[in-house]
């Protein structure tokens, strides 16, 4: 439909980017592609595994169906244990994350050194995965749910501590100063001036973390830290796929329900 005539007196070239901008964009893009390709090649992936992967996967699926419903009697207890590990771990975190958050928030920490310590604890806690923490606690407490509870707690401290510290840094300083000016002790200022302001955030993040922890607790058993993971790992290693599929179903149910509960409670609080 264009009539094919240019409008006299007006430029007929327009570029979205200057040549320099174009170059920069290409460099970023090619850089990303290069890094990805280099990574894949360097990993030395045996691509021929893909040749029969679909056969393997189909085979797996066939063996998984139907699930071995009778096995439910065996996994009922571990399933409840999984929930307990997540819940107790979260409760422990609730009490530890507070003081550390106060250390790690700029406006409540006593001095630079304590601030640094607080920050370091938060970073260290978050850098180490729950499962890795579990390895450590299994070595300490031996296999079982106690190791799992501590693993969950140690990983959650960083998560909750960071969010709470951020909330503390954003509080309204007015009431804090009012209480400080009455000559109250430092602890009192924290408890009366700061705490009430961040409590909603704390409740919210606790419940949010709780449902993440349910998900995490399902695999702690792989390293011996209790919960359904122990049975799951055993069944996978025995190639008892009909038991595996039942457990996957059960895990799916528990995780979805806990997510729903968590979302509902958080909606009620805020």
């Amino acid at each position: 439909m264009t009539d094919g005539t240019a409008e006299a007196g007006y430029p007929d070239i327009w570029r979205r980017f200057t040549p320099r901008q174009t170059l920069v964009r290409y460099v970023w893009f090619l850089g990303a592609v290069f890094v990805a390709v280099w990574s894949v090649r360097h990993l030395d992936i045996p691509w021929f595994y893909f040749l029969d992967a679909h056969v393997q996967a189909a085979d797996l699926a066939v063996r998984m169906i139907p699930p071995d419903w009778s096995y439910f009697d065996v996994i009922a207890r571990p399933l409840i244990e999984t929930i307990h590990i997540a819940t107790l771990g979260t409760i422990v975190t609730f009490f530890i994350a507070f003081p550390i958050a106060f250390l790690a928030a700029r406006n409540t920490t006593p001095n630079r050194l304590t601030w640094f310590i607080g920050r370091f604890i938060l970073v260290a806690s978050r850098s180490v995965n729950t499962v890795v923490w579990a390895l450590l606690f299994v070595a300490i407490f031996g296999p079982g749910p106690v190791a799992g509870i501590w693993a969950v707690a140690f990983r959650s401290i960083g998560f909750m501590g960071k969010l709470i510290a951020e909330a503390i840094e954003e509080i309204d300083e007015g009431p804090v100063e009012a209480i400080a000016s009455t000559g109250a002790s430092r602890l009192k200022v924290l408890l009366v001036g700061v705490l009430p302001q961040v409590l909603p955030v704390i409740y919210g993040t606790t419940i949010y973390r709780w449902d993440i922890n349910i998900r995490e607790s399902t695999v702690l058993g792989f390293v011996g830290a209790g919960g359904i993971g122990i049975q799951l790992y055993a069944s996978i290693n025995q190639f008892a796929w009909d038991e595996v599929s039942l457990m996957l179903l059960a895990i799916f149910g528990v995780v979805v329900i806990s997510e729903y509960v968590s979302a509902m409670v958080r909606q009620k609080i805020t």
Partner: protein
Amino acid sequence: MLKIEALSKSYTAGVAALDNVSFEVAEPQVVAIIGPSGAGKSTLIRCINRLVEPTAGSAILNGENVTNLNSAGLRKARRRMGMIFQEYNLVERLTVMENVLSGRLGYVSFWQAWRRNYPPEDISNAFKLLDRVGLSGFQDQRADALSGGQRQRVGIARALMQKPDLLLVDEPTASLDPKTSRQVMRILVELAHELSTPTLLNIHDVPLAKNFADRVLGMQDGKLIFDGTPDELTEDALTLIYGEEDWKPEAKAGSPAEQENADSPEQAAAV
């Protein structure tokens, strides 16, 4: 040019938002559509380019029945219908030029569109239109950095980029102040006449409609109840469309939205 035949639309079964509307636009003219809120003005316009699917009836543009085209045919038909929106509907994060050029999207290949590699005649036409709407030099600004009036002028340029056979305009000035409204209307109507493009124009502002339109349609409850020249739009006709007394300046004190209009000397003068 455009023929609307018994066009109807009900969003919920039984309630007609558009009820058996028929009219014809036989020459390139600016047709203002007025009527109270909820009368079905937007629905009418959107049923023509099928952003809303009509329930019955047909819209015939230059002999082609748009209502029963398949999706490829509809896309072709939409190329020939430029649309201008109340909220401008520019792609905010794109530049002015990209927004204007997007009017040609129906004509370029995907790859050209992706690379912003439009034919030279499109680019010079875009520069010309930007100049005509008073925005020369703005081509590399992002759309979200513009004022309302500027955005609407980009919207006009985008629609005209399509070299449309029909302009569909849905309350182009409702989000603008009175002075800018008149500027935008003047640009729009001038260009429509200059390019001989028939234009359907929804508008709330009766004085603006009388001032700029060649013909006025009045709607109420989904029905077309007035069709005439601006001069024929007498007090009686307005009463018919808007109901008893509601449209008169003296009656406006009650409604704050209308109050704004009454306060504007520009518009008082325009009546």
